[in-house]
């Protein structure tokens, strides 16, 4: 292509730049959605932008954002973990028993998160070792873990040692959950975009055959992602349990946690079929879900209507993404 003789008008130049950014960054559409929703709620409800409410939004987002960070890695590499919700509810009890046994809280959390990692290892070992789709392996594992949690807890909530050393950092203090979200999102973003692990993750999901021919150790990469996802799920469960002040076996809602993590990942631009996705996008997806939940509560939308509107909003966000993707592909082919 050659330089154009006539320069386009100034305004088009701006549009072009905005458009170029939108096309270059797959997360940008969901970022616009988040911004627009935040603006809307801020305009209609003055309480939306108060510190207290921003804290509530962050709380709505903690579990989904951390679970989604792990789920994205698995989805990109062509796998999924449906047991994350159950691991989320199991790990606090591992921490509880470790702390009962005399470990200080930070160490007990390490023990708990390692325990969660064992579940991830089993998921990976069974799925990759026997060639069974991770969908079904992790579904089964979810039930196993649910039963295990109910047994070790006697189905009874346990009081969090709230005066324990370090409880403030691990979810106890206001915004400590958000701090962990930010640390994890940045860390995972760097891993995905700037490490061999990340590059290989995209490769094994996008083109499994090509990747293996190129010598990418796909089993090792997937195994890492299984373990990582389970550990993140466990950690999220612990900091949320500490925030709420009670470790609950949560028999009924484990599935919801998983599906929200998948929803956040997918509305943030991660392909369910694998091969592409971003951590930042999943974070923004979780943010959108958090803003919707908080905003609807502030506005006084009642429970019966709530999930209907939430579901419609998720579908709309997805339609938007799909339109943006098509535009992206069109413009990319136009560039060639």
């Amino acid at each position, binding site marked *: 292509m050659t330089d154009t003789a006539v320069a386009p008008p100034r305004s088009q130049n701006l549009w072009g730049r905005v458009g170029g950014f939108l096309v270059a960054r797959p997360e940008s559409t969901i970022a616009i959605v988040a911004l*627009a929703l935040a603006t809307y709620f801020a305009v209609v409800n003055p309480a939306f932008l108060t510190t207290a409410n921003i804290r509530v939004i962050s709380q709505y987002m903690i579990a989904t954002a951390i679970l989604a960070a792990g789920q994205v890695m698995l989805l990109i590499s062509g796998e999924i973990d449906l047991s994350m919700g159950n691991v989320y509810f199991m790990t606090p009890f591992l921490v509880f028993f470790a702390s009962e046994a005399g470990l200080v809280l930070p160490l007990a959390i390490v023990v708990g998160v390692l325990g969660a990692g064992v579940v991830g290892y089993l998921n990976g070992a069974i799925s990759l070792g026997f060639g069974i789709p991770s969908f079904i392996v992790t579904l089964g594992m979810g039930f196993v873990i649910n039963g295990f949690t109910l047994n070790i807890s006697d189905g009874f909530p346990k009081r969090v040692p709230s005066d324990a050393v370090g409880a403030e950092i691990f979810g106890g203090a206001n915004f400590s959950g958000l701090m962990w979200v930010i640390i994890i999102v940045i860390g995972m973003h760097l891993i995905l975009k700037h490490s061999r692990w990340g590059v290989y993750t995209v490769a094994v999901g996008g083109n499994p055959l090509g990747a293996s021919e190129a010598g990418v150790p796909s089993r090792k990469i997937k195994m890492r992602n299984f373990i990582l996802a389970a550990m993140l799920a466990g950690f999220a469960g612990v900091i949320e349990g500490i925030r709420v*002040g009670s470790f609950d076996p949560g028999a009924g809602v484990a599935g919801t946690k998983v599906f929200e993590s998948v929803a956040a990942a997918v509305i943030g631009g991660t392909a369910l079929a694998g091969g592409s996705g971003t951590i930042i996008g999943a974070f923004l997806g979780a943010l959108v879900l958090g803003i919707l939940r908080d905003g609807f509560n502030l506005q006084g939308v009642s429970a019966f209507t709530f999930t209907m509107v939430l579901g419609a*909003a998720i579908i709309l966000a997805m339609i938007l993404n799909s339109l943006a993707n098509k535009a992206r592909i069109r413009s990319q082919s136009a560039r060639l």
Partner: protein
Amino acid sequence: MPPDTVQLLSPSRRNFLKALGMTAAIGLINACTNDGATATTAAGGTGGTGGTAAAGGGGAGNFPETPEWNFVFVNHVTTNPFFVPTVYGIEDASAILGTSFQWTGSEGADNGEMVNAMEAAIAGEADGIGVCLVDLEAFNGPTDDALAAGIPVLSYNADAPNSRLCYVGQDLYGSGFEMGNRIVELVGSGKVALFIATPGQLNIQPRIDGALDAIAESGADIEAIDIATGAALEEELSTVEAWYLGNQDATGMFAVDAGSTQAVGQVVRDQNARDNALAGAGGYDLLPETVELVSEGVLDFTIDQQPYLQGFLPTLYLYLYKLSGGVVTPPETNTGLVFLDSSSAQLFLKTSSRFEGDAAEQAIVEPVG
């Protein structure tokens, strides 16, 4: 400017506009939903955000004109049919008093989600909060925060000893204790199962504790066994049936939650347990099938706890607290311990009303028989 930017222009601008349009649409849905919900309330439906009633000079009835106070009800199972009469109770009280309300919380007893809903209500400067305290610890912080922000908090349906102003609901341990006494009367001795959906949940666990204590204190030769049945009705039915098939010498089967009670009745009927050793069966709450089973004599009793009042009275209490500037302290209220038997169940069987939750229309319910 490079030419490819120009070529990008058209699709990307469309894309950008679509993004704006789509988010505007989400906002529009939200706006419509609010209107829709209020309209539903006026028509007597469930789950509305409440409507204002009184018009003209003063406020509701004799009261001075008040702002449209908004009371938020945080619930652990927002879509459970048990609470339909509760929502009607809140709606009706709100219509009398010219207040509005929000019914929110968790669909699946997720403490974190309930705490979030409660904290959103505090951030949104709600005028009062009613909450089911289903956990001993989780809601203590938010309750203190709300009270510190001048928002009255009371508990309904389930209670924990924290700084809330009062509890409106059944005396759970006391009702369990009464049930235990009734079990001793009916059964006398032998193997008795006590079914509980989710052990440890504060709105049912105290009942089973009360029943077990009463049986132990009576000194009767009863072997009481507590069994967890699960949160879903189908699961509860399977658990109760499996237990009975393995324990056909049981002399009694009782339950402390709505789903398990219905399951006990169904198993007693389907397995003809009364033809074996079974001498007593019963439980809690008024699921339609349970009422039917009590009226047929399959179940000896079911215990009513007046869910309508668990919505109506908290709304009234929060209103009076606001109106009186805190002079009227809401009282602890036991919404009841009524044993329904085969004759008193007839009334519930033959009527349908907002008080039972099986009819949305406002109507005067005629007594039966």
